[in-house]
């Protein structure tokens, strides 16, 4: 579906772990949203000037949600929006894909948001999920309800998600794997999967974006075929194709 640009009122802003789950009402975006899609969110101002890309976290019949982590000025303002505030929304954007019925999801931190949305398109599988602190782990029960076995780990209590992926690498055999997390995490998982000779893996790639419509050529990611734009050919790429340097 063609993306649309609209000014939408915030329906709800709810704290979820260390994040903010912001929900908007919009039938059209919800109707056409698919796995892999994202939206650009902008404020009604010239400062911050650029919109920010967010993957869908949840899409229901008439409302959709994104998950915001405060990282800078834009996300700080977004984290404070209240019901009724007007936000510029452009989407759905990005290249969609059809997820498998069963598969493995690997998430680090706020990377849980898009894989949670993806899980809704699947029948089940395994989730490997790491965060800094125990209280940062969110949506675990919901993943269970969606038919996922959940393996978690935190830095304050045991280590990194890469540690459990390595430990339970045998559970990955023959499965399609989807990864969403920090570049360093994705890089380490790429090397684990390569050691295990598992190649059906895909990574959600995050880059700074200007427009979301391939106009500015900002969100380049290096791949085996040269630079590709995350907004146009992503955000999900075959793991072996992307350079994570």
């Amino acid at each position: 579906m063609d993306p649309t640009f609209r000014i939408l009122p915030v329906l709800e802003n709810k704290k979820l772990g260390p994040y903010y789950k912001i929900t908007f009402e919009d039938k059209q975006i919800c109707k056409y949203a698919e796995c892999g899609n994202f939206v650009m969110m902008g404020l009604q101002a010239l400062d911050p000037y650029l919109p920010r890309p967010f993957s869908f976290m949840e899409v229901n019949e008439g409302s959709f949600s994104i998950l915001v982590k405060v990282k800078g000025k834009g996300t700080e303002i977004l984290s404070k929006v209240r019901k009724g505030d007007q936000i510029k929304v452009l989407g759905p954007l990005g290249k969609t894909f059809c997820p498998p019925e069963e598969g493995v999801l690997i998430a680090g931190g706020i990377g849980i948001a898009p894989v949670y949305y993806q899980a809704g398109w699947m029948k089940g599988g395994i989730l490997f999920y790491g965060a800094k602190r125990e209280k940062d782990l969110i949506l675990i029960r919901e993943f269970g309800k969606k038919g996922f076995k959940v393996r978690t780990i935190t830095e304050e209590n045991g280590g990194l998600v890469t540690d459990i992926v390595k430990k339970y690498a045998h559970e990955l055999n023959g499965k399609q794997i989807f990864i969403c997390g920090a570049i360093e995490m994705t890089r380490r998982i790429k090397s684990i999967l390569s050691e295990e000779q598992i190649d059906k893996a895909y990574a959600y790639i995050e880059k700074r974006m200007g427009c979301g419509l391939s106009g500015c050529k900002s969100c380049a990611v290096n791949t085996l075929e040269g630079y590709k734009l995350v907004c146009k050919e992503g955000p999900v790429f075959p793991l072996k194709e992307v350079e994570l340097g």
Partner: protein
Amino acid sequence: MVDLRVKIGSIELQNPVLLASGVWDFPYTKMIDFKRLGGVVCKGFSLFPKEGNPPPRITETPCGVINSIGLENKGLENFETEILPEAKKLGTPIIVNIFGESIEEFKEIASKINGVAGIEVNISCPNVNRGGESFGGDPKTVFSITKAVCEETELPVIVKLTPNAANIEETAEAAREGGATAVTASNTFSGLVIDIDRKEPLFKRVTGGLSGPAIKPLALYNVYKIKNAVDIPIIGSGGIADYRDVLEYLIAGAAAVQLGSIIFNNPLAPIEILDNLKYWLKENGCKNLKDISKK
């Protein structure tokens, strides 16, 4: 009925609002009715493909955006076979922005471009090692490239100036002497962003090009300076965010304007600006663009 038509040399535009190069791509046709625009300038291309600069390529500054894209493009051949045929379907005048690393490259590209409204010569990109701003900062080089391009083409030639030149009136004059139909004033301002985590410049090429409302007074001043020093039509560009900015540029002496990064902030901005501009003219008793400057 307000008449928004404007003529820049032999280029006839239905209104003075153009889209600048390097900010739009065809997916924007889902947002903007291109037929309503005065025209569009296509993303700059070079003789051979350029892969562009390594990421990060963009970051935000207060009321602005700084980029280090590095003229990523697929080259002349791809432009001719893939981009231009699509652009021609947009129903608006097409100006093609060309980039060369040498006078010879500029000449070769210019000689092969036909069937468009004009050529914009990019000698002002701050994000490449060869060509770009290093050409545009030197009036002698500006003259030589403009002359060389004009000798290769019958099309109107617009020279896109760099605001980072020591004296923009001199480079504008050099473009005029070289045979340019108009100048675009101006490209992005060189600027620096430091990554405080890595304690070094954010961009691999150190500097980037700053655009957006943050630079509007600076770019507007360039238009004003050129208008008062050089007899050449000016296309104003830099930080336009609404119709009032367009009016400022037109009053300062621009014949037309280019919208750039504002379409990242609001993809509907070009049409909103056009509607509001038309409304303002009507409300202020202006029958055409010339009436704007009447006191």
